[in-house]
Each structure stands twice: as C-alpha cells, then as structure tokens.
C-alpha cells in the first residue's frame, strides 16, 4: 500500500498489537509483556470512536499475561487489577467481577468476598443505573458465596448433630447466610439468562427449609419461561426435583419431553425410555421407541449396554406381541442404510464380544430382528455364544430363528 512507509502513531500501535496477539497465541508471555510495555502509551490517546479502546485491550491482555507469566504473582495481579478499575468507569463493575473470578480460581474466597462487597457498595452517578446488570451479577455471586458459607455451617451442624450436640450459634449463623444468599439468588434468576449454578443453590436452600412450592415455581419458570434461553439443564433440574418429590410418572415424563427435543443424546433418555415403555398409553410407548432409537444414533452411546438392553427389550416385546411392527418399520426406515455399518459390522461384533458380552447379547438381539439371522453381527455373536455354551445365547438364537421373517417385513 502507498502508506506502508508512512508510519504514524495509530499504525505503529496496530502493528504492536498484532505482535502481542501472536505472542499470546504462542504462549510467549515474556515477548507479549515486552510489546505490551510499548503499547500502553495508547492510553494517552482517546480512542472513543473505536469499538474496543486501548484501555479495554490493555486490561484483557495484561490480565492474560499476568495470569500465566511465571514471574508474576497474585500481588502483582491484584495491583494491576486495581489500576484497571480506575481506568474506565464504564467498565468498573465488570473488571471487579472478573477480578473476583480470578481470585476464586486461585482459592482466595475471602478476598473474593471482600471485593464483591466493595463492588456492591460502589456508586457513580448515572453509571450505577447503567451498570445495573453487572451489579445484579455481583450481588448474585456474593449470594453464591453466602450459600457456600451456609453449606459449610450446615455440614458442621449435621456432623455435630450426630454426636448429639446442637450449636445454637452455628445454627443462627447458618440461617443468617441463608437469608443473605436467598435474597440475592432470587433476584438474579428473575432476569432471563443461564443461571444454572444460582438456580441449583437456590433450590437447595428452598428444599432444606421446606419451601417446596417456591422451589417448584422457580424451576418451572427456569425451564418453561420462553424468555429464558433454551437450557437442557433447566429440565434436568426440574426432573430431578420432581423425582425427589416423588411425583407421578406422568409429570416426570412431561418434564423430560422437552429435554428429548433439545438433547436427544442426553443420558436421562434411558430413564425416559424406561418410563415410556411401561406406560399404558400407546402414544407414550411409541414415543419411547423413538427416544431410544434416536439416542443410539449418537456415537457416544454405541457401547452403552443399558441403552441397548432398553431397545432390545422393547423390540422383543413388540415382536412377541406381533402388534405395532410398523413402529419398528418407521424407525428403521431412516436407519437401515447406515446403522448396519455403524453398529453391526463384523469388526464390532468381534470387539463387543471380547469386551462386553452383555452388550453383544443385547445388540445381537436387535441385529437379529432388524437384519435377520444371517447378518454378520448376529451370526458371529450367536455362534460365539453357543460355542461358549452360554445359555442365554442359545435362547437368543432360538428366538431370532423363530422370528426370522420379521426383518423382511421391517425392511419392506
């Protein structure tokens, strides 16, 4: 470019920044520090037109370097953070928060708590209102640390309780923490967002003090309020809560429905299928079959014996009853082109047999039904099983032989 040789402040700093970025990517902390030393004078220029100004860049890069550099220590780090807090009032609370995170990572819980309290008491004209969200976060994290203290007290109490002691002071302290934590946690989860850790802690508190209604409401809001981002964990928490409360299968099933839609490979799909299979309602049983088939589409489930046993059980049941073979046909239709290579290859047959006989048993059953007794997988496993004189494999062989023509009807 014609301006290549025309070096000015801005270009020089841009070049400096790219050297810093290269050094960071290669974890060359000394070199990054070297160039950052030259970059910091950008603070003396006002870049308010830029999207990210020098002060933010210096904050982020400096944090990275000080966190990783071998010669740096927490004292240096804290000193730097304090300076960064004074740099930009618009960013004050965010810097405080990130500082707190670093302290927590370093195990300095008390310092983190102090910083949070300090930040909470910060007021700066109209900025206070503008940074309202950050303030709520700060309060929420303080609430979290209060919960942590509450939890410690609770454990002390429980231990002492076993010995027959009851320490009133500890108990009062515990209740104090509860109040402080609950107030803040409740506030943050009102705002749409992903607040897994806050929700869990809050629900834990509510359950301990017996406020199950509130807990249920909180979890329902978290899972079903459309303003909140789709979050599989919300449904998991709700399900676990309902299970703890001993709710009916019906409500348990309804809690897992959306989870199946969002994360078909979730580990709770086994529970889901188990409940659905046993249902009296035809629709539910149908759904159950879909659930288990879908779960096994995922590579992480390939060697999950439990999942295969669920599928095997349901398939077997359908075959024996001779009703609803079309269900299997529907499910198999989109899978018949790739499941054989994916699950039922000869190589897998050998490996499964070697590593996990139960797994191979369940899979062989499914393979035998879906692909017939002459398929590679079933042939190998059943042969091996009979050779080893294992009774169930002989039973399996008989069963599949008896129902051999099913696969023709399924594959259409």
């Amino acid at each position, binding site marked *: 470019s014609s301006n290549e040789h*025309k070096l000015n402040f801005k270009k020089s700093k841009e070049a400096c920044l790219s050297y810093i970025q290269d050094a960071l990517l290669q974890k060359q902390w*000394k070199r990054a520090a070297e160039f*950052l030393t*030259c970059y*910091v004078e950008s603070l003396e220029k006002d870049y308010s037109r830029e999207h990210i100004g020098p002060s933010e860049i210096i904050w982020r890069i*400096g944090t990275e370097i000080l966190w990783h550099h071998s010669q740096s220590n927490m004292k240096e780090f804290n000193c730097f953070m304090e300076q960064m807090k004074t740099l930009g009032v618009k960013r004050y609370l965010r810097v405080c928060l990130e500082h707190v995170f670093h302290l927590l990572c370093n195990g300095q819980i008390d310092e983190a708590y102090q910083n949070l309290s300090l930040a909470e008491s910060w007021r700066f004209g109209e900025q206070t209102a503008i940074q309202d969200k950050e303030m709520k976060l700060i309060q929420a994290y303080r609430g979290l640390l209060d919960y942590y203290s509450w939890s410690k007290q609770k454990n002390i109490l429980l231990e002492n309780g076993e010995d027959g002691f009851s320490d009133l002071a500890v108990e009062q302290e515990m209740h104090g923490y509860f109040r402080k934590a609950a107030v803040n946690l409740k506030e943050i989860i009102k705002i749409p967002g992903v607040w897994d850790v806050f929700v869990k802690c809050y629900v834990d508190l509510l359950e301990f003090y017996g406020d199950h209604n509130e807990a249920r409401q909180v979890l329902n809001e978290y899972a079903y309020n459309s303003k909140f981002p789709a979050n599989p964990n919300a449904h998991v928490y709700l399900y676990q809560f309902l299970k703890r409360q001993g709710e009916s299968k019906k409500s348990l099933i309804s809690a897992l429905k959306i989870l199946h839609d969002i994360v078909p490979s979730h580990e709770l799909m086994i529970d889901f299928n188990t409940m659905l299979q046993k249902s009296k309602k035809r629709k539910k049983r149908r759904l159950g079959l879909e659930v288990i088939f879908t779960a096994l589409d995922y590579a992480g489930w390939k060697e999950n014996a439990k999942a295969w046993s669920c599928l095997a059980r349901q398939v077997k049941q359908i075959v024996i009853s001779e009703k609803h073979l079309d269900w299997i046909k529907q499910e198999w239709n989109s899978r018949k082109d790739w499941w054989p290579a994916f699950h039922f290859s000869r190589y897998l047959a050998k490996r499964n047999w070697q590593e996990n006989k139960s797994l191979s048993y369940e899979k062989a059953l499914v393979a035998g039904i879906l692909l017939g007794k002459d398929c590679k997988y079933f042939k190998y496993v059943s042969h091996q099983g009979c050779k080893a004189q294992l009774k169930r494999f002989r039973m399996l062989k008989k069963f599949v032989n008896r129902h051999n023509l099913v696969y023709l009807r399924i594959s259409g």
Partner: protein
Amino acid sequence: RDFNERCAQCSEVNWGLTDGGGFYCRSCHNVTERTREVVNTDFITNSRVQTISKGSKKQEKNDGGCEWYICEGFQLVLKKQVEALEALGVCPQMKDEILCNFWRCYLQKSKQAYCKRPAAETVKALSVCESSTDVDSDPERPSLLHLLSLSESEGDLQTDCSFASSVSKVSESTSVYSGSVDGSLYIMKNQKEKLRMTMPMTLSFCYMALLWMREPITLSEFLRFVVEGHIPYLNVFQHFPEKMKLCGLDLKIFCVESWPVYEEVFNKMHELAAFLDLPRFPDITESCFLHPDMLCMKYLMEANLPDELHNWTCRVVKKIGIGEVDFLTLTPGNKSTRKVKYDVLAAAVIVVVLKLLFLLDDHYEWLLSEFAEERNKNNTEGGPYFEFKKWYEVVKHSLDVEQKKLDEERAKYLWRCEKPLFYSVKKKSKVLKRRQMVVNLQNQFGKLSGSVQRAEKPNPSSFQLSWSEENTDGSCFHGHSLKGVLQEKRGLLTAMNPDYWLCTVKLCNEKLCGHLAHYKDVEFPQSYHFVLGLFSFLLRIQPSYIHDEVCMIEHKLFNKKLHKKLKYNTVLRK
C-alpha cells in the same frame, strides 16, 4: 555581533539593534537596557536591522509563562536540529551562517518578523489557557472546532474526543486556546498565500541547508537519522523553556504523530527554495558526495555488489548526462528541470546496470549464475566470478533479518515523552493521571519482559548493511569479478546479455498523476522486484519511486531507439 550574552528571556544569542541604540533579542523581542558601547560601523551597514514596533513589551503572566510566537517555537526547533547535526559531524557554519540566514529570510518573506507587522492582522487571540471570558466579543471569531477542522495536520489530534468534548461546552465567544500568542492565527492562515511553517518543514529547512553546504548526507539518510532519534523531531517541544507554555492549538502545530515521508520533505524543500528566492545552489561536481558516481559506489558497497560494477554505473551516468553539473545543481524556481533525488537516482542507476548485465527476467540471470558457478567450482585460481544466485541468497537473508528487526522496532516505537501535553488546564489533571498510569504499567510489564532492556540508541551509521571481505564464508561480493557476464568486442568490454526490457514504453505525465510510471499495475520479474525491494529498504522509500527513476533513466538511455517505430514487443537489442 559583539554582544554575546544570552538573552535573559529565551537564552538565545541572537541580537539586533533598535534605532535607539539598544539591543533587542531577535528570538523573543526582549529589549535590554544595555546599549552598544562601541560603535561598529561594519555592523550597522551589514545587518539588515529593521525597526520594531515598541508596542509588544513582554509581560509576565500569572502562570509564569511568557508571550511567545509560533515562529519562535520553530526557531528553537531548528536550533535543536542543527545542533544535533553538528554533533553528527556537520560543519558548524551551517548553523550560524546558512540555516540562520535561510530562517531569517523566511521570516521576512512570510512577514512574521523583520518587517512592518501588518496592523490588520493583529493577533486578537488571547494566549490564555484558562477559560476566561473573551475580551472582544467578535461574532466572526471562529469557533475552536472550526479551527480544528481547517488544519490539515494528520494524526488523531484532530479527532481527539477529549478535546472536542471540552470544547463543546465552550460557547462561540470564548477565547481560543493556545499557549502562544498567534497559535490560532497560524492554523487559520490560508496556506496558499504564504508557506506556513510546519514540523515537517523544519526538516525541509535542514535538508536545504545541508544541500547548500553539500554535506555528505542524502535526504533518505537524514530522514532515517530523524526516525532513529538522532535528530530531534518527535517530542522536540520538551526542550522549549519553561516559560513557553504549550497548550491548545499549539499542540496541533508542534506535536507530530507521524513520520514525514521523503516526497513530502523533498517537495516542500523545493517550494521553500523558490519562495525564498534563493540563487543557484553551490555546484554539485564529480567530487561531491551527492554526485551519482560517489553515491553509486556507496550503494554498491552496501548492496554487496562487485566493485567492478562501478565502471558500468559511471558509463551510464556519463552517457545520459546525469553527472553534469547543471543537471545536478539545484536552481530554485526553475520549473523546466526535473528535481533531482540524488539517492534515488543513484539507486536507479545501479538497477539499470543490473538489468543491462543480467537482464533480470527471471531466467537469464540464473543461467549466467549457473555458468559462473561451474567455472568457480572448476577453477579456484584467480578471483571468483560473481554468482547472482549466491548473492541473492546472502543478501536476501540479511535483508529479511533486518526487515524483521525494523518491523519490530516500528511496532515498539514509543511516541510519548515525559513532558505531558494538555489542551487546556481543565484537562491537566486527567492527563497527568494517565501519564502516571502509563509509567506504572510500563514498569510493571517491563519487568516481566525478561532480560530485554531498551538499549541505548545505537550510534548513527551511514551503512545499514555491511559486508566484510575478511569473512571466509564468501558472503562478501565486493571483490568478485564480472568476467562471467562480460565479453570483449573490438577491444571494449560489453555485456554478454544482448537484450533489455523497458519498464515502460511510455512515460506518464508526472504532473497529472504524480508518477512517471505505475509500478503496482504491471507484473515485473521477481528479480526486479527483489532489487527494487533492496534499495527500497536501504532508502526507506516506496519502491515505486525508484521505479520512476529507473524509467526516466531508461528513456534517456534508449532515447534514439525509442523514437524509431517500435513493435509492441518491448524487448530491445542493445
């Protein structure tokens, strides 16, 4: 002339006579009580003493500052620069006789001093930095923002929001901020009328003086010394005396945020020379450093090329007449002659010679190199023949290393200095706080930089690349022979290469598009790019400028052949 005391106000030794017989300091117009004791008639008749209006008595202001004019500031800058040049070995005459006179002439021609100050233009702008209310409520006084937008100085000063935000609260009638008396006037001046002084122009002044003295330093070298910090430029205002307060618009004038480009300084210098009505400069003869023969020798050495090539550069120079005194010597105001860039010209001559001998079409030079290599392998007696390939590898390696170093240096460049600047007193505390934070951060991260300390700036050297014949690895090509590429014809040594390709068939009109040819638009052989890149690095200028000179030389060299009707094929037989 006899009065050598330093001025009480500005420490300058620059005295003139008032008509009352007293001494006045030309730099700051401070009038002393001393009168001349001895009448020196020579002094009176030689000096061009002008009367000065007695109106502007210096007044000390509250903040300890004094009234000062922009041109006084520039005078200080020039003084510092020329002192630095003296330290580098330039003849001391330059300061006292040449540059001084150039400057005075400029002041006079631009009506900033040594003349009746045009009354209408009295500077109304107050030099107050505090936000006092204006003395005269002149509705036509331009607002600060307007003044900012008029100035064409580059850099972010114009868009400095901290300035703009402080100004937006200022109403139209508030005084204009500047530490100097005429800061605002300076920015407002219509630059077409008079050559308004700028920081880059101080370099033009210096170079003009250097050229007049025919000092052995080229413009590219001079600018390199500036960038390397041997000549004060970047933060030179920090050497202003305490009493000269800089703020407001002064910053726009004296704070630079970019390095001036060769073209800019060069063109300004010529403008200046014409403006000052200077006569023809001292002759540039064959024994001058700036003569192409001398410069070619220097650049050949630096480019690690065989000394034998010098014969060829001299031949080319002679043939096209660029070694003639009249061609080389600057005559200001003469618009018909092309302005000579001595360094670029010499570099271009070398490029042309390389093209003559090696063709540089990405084939022939490698072919020749192979022959030379063969010969060198089999025949170790007598000196080695020059191998283009080896030379390319050695030079490219060094060039890459140096370029990388240069790029890193540029990225690590520190622009600020200890003396803080602020547009207005209101901003002072914020600026100082920031400065303190910057210093703290520099300390903190400087410690983490490991053992890398910012070294003292190395002594300025004329040669950026150096090659020693004592190196046994054969990486120095000065003594290598060109026998491999030459042949004897009728008692004359000519190149074996019979062909030549022109960079461009037709030269552009420089006045229209700024260039003689367009380097970027055409695909040239890689070897050509390499050679241009080498000199581009050494001279710190864009390769396109060297390319322009190459085109110019080629067209002079092949003038006759070009006037014959040429086919589209631009390859010529020599």
